[in-house]
């Protein structure tokens, strides 16, 4: 009887403790849809993305507010939100995936671990699979991550009108960088 109680408690405790989770609310996401014939660079930065990583199972998730993307040109920013991303209708983009080679990472040892991240990116109300090459960097016990991938805008039903079709790239290059803090439950 007592044994059972202790076991149960141990199971509870183990479950809450094992989940080593890290997060940030200041991940940086760069967006670049410049094509070779663009008259000006179509790029934006968002420094307020949220990221949570569960180092136990390699689950990784991002969320970002579309209106947080800052462009050099105000009109471009307006068009990004108003005409392409429809940010009032679809305010957030989310990525939910996992680090494929999570078991190869020793989170307690300094080093740079090249990994593959696979998951689903949802933006503009559409979801599509994404594979990204990423790096997990452990330095003095601190975890940071960087990833780089391209998305096809048509996969997310982001339409580019014929008039400007040659001025905007059909794919957007997304670069992600973040440094993570331990998450206390």
């Amino acid at each position, binding site marked *: 009887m007592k044994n*059972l109680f202790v076991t149960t408690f141990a199971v509870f405790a183990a479950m809450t403790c094992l989940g080593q989770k890290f997060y940030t609310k200041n991940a940086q996401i760069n967006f670049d849809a410049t094509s070779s014939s663009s008259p000006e660079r179509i790029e*934006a930065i968002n420094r307020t993305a949220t990221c949570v990583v569960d180092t136990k199972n390699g689950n990784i998730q991002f969320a970002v507010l579309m209106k947080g993307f800052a462009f050099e040109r105000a009109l471009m920013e307006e068009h990004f939100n108003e005409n392409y991303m429809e940010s*009032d209708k679809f305010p957030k983009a989310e990525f939910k995936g996992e680090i494929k080679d999570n078991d190869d990472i020793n989170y307690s040892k300094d080093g740079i671990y090249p990994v593959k991240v696979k998951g689903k990116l949802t933006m503009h109300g559409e979801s599509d699979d994404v594979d990204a090459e990423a790096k997990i960097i452990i330095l003095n016990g601190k975890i940071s991550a960087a990833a780089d991938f391209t998305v096809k805008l048509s996969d997310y039903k982001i339409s580019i009108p014929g008039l400007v079709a040659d001025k905007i790239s059909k794919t957007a290059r997304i670069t992600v960088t973040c440094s993570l803090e331990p998450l206390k439950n």
Partner: protein
Amino acid sequence: MKNLLFRFTLGIVVLLFNMSLFAQDPDLLKLLGDDNEKKEIIRNAFKSPRVINSHSMEFLRPGTMDFRILHRFGQLNQGYKNFFGLDQASMRMGFDFGILQNLMVGLGRSTYKKELDAFIKYAPIRQSKGPWSSPVTFALVSGITMDGTSWSDPSRKNFFTSRLAYYFEAIIGRKFSEAFSLQVSPTMVHKNLVPFETDPNNIYAVGVGGRLKLSKRIAITWDYSHVIIGMPDSGYYNPLSVGFDIETGGHVFQLHFSNSTGMNERAFITETTSNWMKGEVRFGFNLSRVFQIKKKKLNN
């Protein structure tokens, strides 16, 4: 027996607990809790800072300049001889500058009366959502116009100030939905000099402007001003304009039909001499091109 029951209950509890842990989709983002909702300004009630003739509740972004070329042609009912009015054109060239999110200034010159005009527009309250939000935008416009024609009677003593007129306008507007925006704008125009002693110097009007979006880049717009006090007895009409906004990348084209030729508040509110009812309608367009003068620093 009691012991057995206890074990059984405990077993169930453990089972349920485990299930609840494993069954859920691992939504890590929820662990961070919901972000505090921030106040957010509602933008793009109109495609441009003008509905058609009137100022809209919208503002230029800081660091941008809007170069505006406006044309108003002759009356359509002149027929083919004057190519439905296109043979005659009146124009205004204008430069508007966005200074702050809620402050802009502009100046322009019209061919009609060789008039120069300048304005300042400020919104103490902007429509927003989130905590402490306002359901409407409240903006104020103050402008001045200067007649550039020669004195009608050079023999008498003429003052420079006689060339000037002023207008003061409040805009109360709301973007009701992505597609529909509406604004009301009480306006007062003061003319320093009027042609006849019986003409009032102060004219009070209320404007109503709106937009209905047809697609992401095309919208129907309308713009009407009703003069309440100070309308001369005959020969003058309230200006009504109806048109389309078409956005093509960096340009906004506003194509419309109107009974007014004036392109500043003094001219279109107090000097519209055509009558829709008699078919005295004109074609006109506004071309707006926004330039970024000061780029936002991104610091990669």
